[in-house]
């Protein structure tokens, strides 16, 4: 094995190792925000509550992935979440499209669902989606259910036993 070959292989090995460290830092650890090549357009939407939505979550229309969530910020004036949606350019949506946050499965990840409306004007880059529907929070659902149950229990237990119930 000549010196040159050994040098070459050691160089490849060290470069590969450092490359792997960079990969772990950037792509996995997200040290810097990785921007992918843009090929499409971006629209914004306001939500009262985004639940567990995360950047890079999918955007689906009729179950088909049409884009990705670009970023999520809080509007300090209105205390609403401002979500930037990156949509692929071959999917056009009308201006009265409804954006809603859904959950896939019971505890699965959340995604943005788009339901197209009937407007003939299409959404353009940097425009706002006006109609939105927030994420359903499972805690709220449970507490609503518990309260409604708690309210109806006295009535149901009181009815069969009649006047025999003591306070």
């Amino acid at each position, binding site marked *: 094995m000549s010196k040159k070959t050994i040098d070459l292989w*050691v160089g490849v*090995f*060290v470069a590969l*190792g450092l490359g*792997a460290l960079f990969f*772990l830092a950037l792509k*996995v*650890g*997200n040290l810097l925000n990785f921007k992918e090549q843009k090929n499409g357009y971006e629209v914004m939407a306001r939500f009262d509550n985004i639940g567990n939505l995360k950047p890079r979550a999918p955007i689906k229309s009729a179950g088909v992935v049409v884009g990705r969530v670009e970023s999520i910020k809080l509007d300090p004036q209105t205390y609403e979440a401002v979500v930037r949606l990156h949509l692929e350019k071959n999917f056009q949506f009308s201006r009265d499209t409804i954006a809603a946050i859904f959950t896939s499965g019971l*505890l699965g990840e959340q995604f943005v669902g788009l339901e197209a409306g009937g407007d003939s004007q299409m959404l353009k880059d940097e425009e706002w989606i006006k109609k939105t529907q927030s994420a359903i929070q499972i805690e709220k659902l449970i507490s609503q259910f518990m309260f409604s149950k708690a309210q109806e229990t006295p009535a149901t237990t009181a009815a069969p036993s009649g006047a025999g119930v003591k306070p």
Partner: protein
Amino acid sequence: MNFLAKIADWFRSIGTATRNGITRLGFATRFFWAIVRASGPTFMRPRLLIREIYHAGVLSLVIVLMSGLFIGMVLALQGYETLVRFGATEAMGVLVALSLVRELGPVVAGLLFASRAGSAMTAEIGLMKTTEQLAAMDVMAIDPVARVVAPRFWAGVISLPLLAAIFSMLGIYGGFLVGVKLIGIDGGAFWGQMQVAVDWRNDVMNGVIKSVVFAFAVSLIAVFEGYDATPTAEGVSAATTRTVVTSALAILALDFVLTVFMFRGGVN
């Protein structure tokens, strides 16, 4: 009387074993300082170091690449089995990345390195001692620790962290292949949730620190066992076995200690 003498013998054997263990530990520590003191020539003449990195690192590359890929793919398959019950298959990226970067990358790469490169180092140095090459160097006024031991030690210390990083990267790619390409999890969720969950300092850096600690431990054990080998064919074979066994135990024990200090009480 005979009975008492037997008991005394038994206690004496325990005492001898303990004293020998402590002696070897002290010898290993002093050997480490000798290596550090004699490592000037290693860095003054990088050719020695590069040759050893080639033997320890580059030649271990194939086994590390293959095992990383397969472990990542198996993690993804097994993780899917569990996650699908909770309908949380999108968290597979998090599962694969965290288990590889925090634990499996440094530990499995360390174990592979100990058995692939550490055993070779021990056998080489032990055979040099058996054939009296080290003694001959000493006669020619060449310090065998500086010429033979230190380059191998530092090559191991440099190679293992790089191998561990490559292992983790390939493992995550293997998880991506199985999870996204084969099973059909959403690719954006795989990477996106991984990037939200994996912290640069807490997860990635701690994994790197682990692999550096393992690198020091494995390399020291390998060169020490070789240098300390009984100069016979049998002695070299016993030393090689001890290298693999001791390195594996050291890696797993150190891993526990480091994990306790690094990740106690969750992420923060």
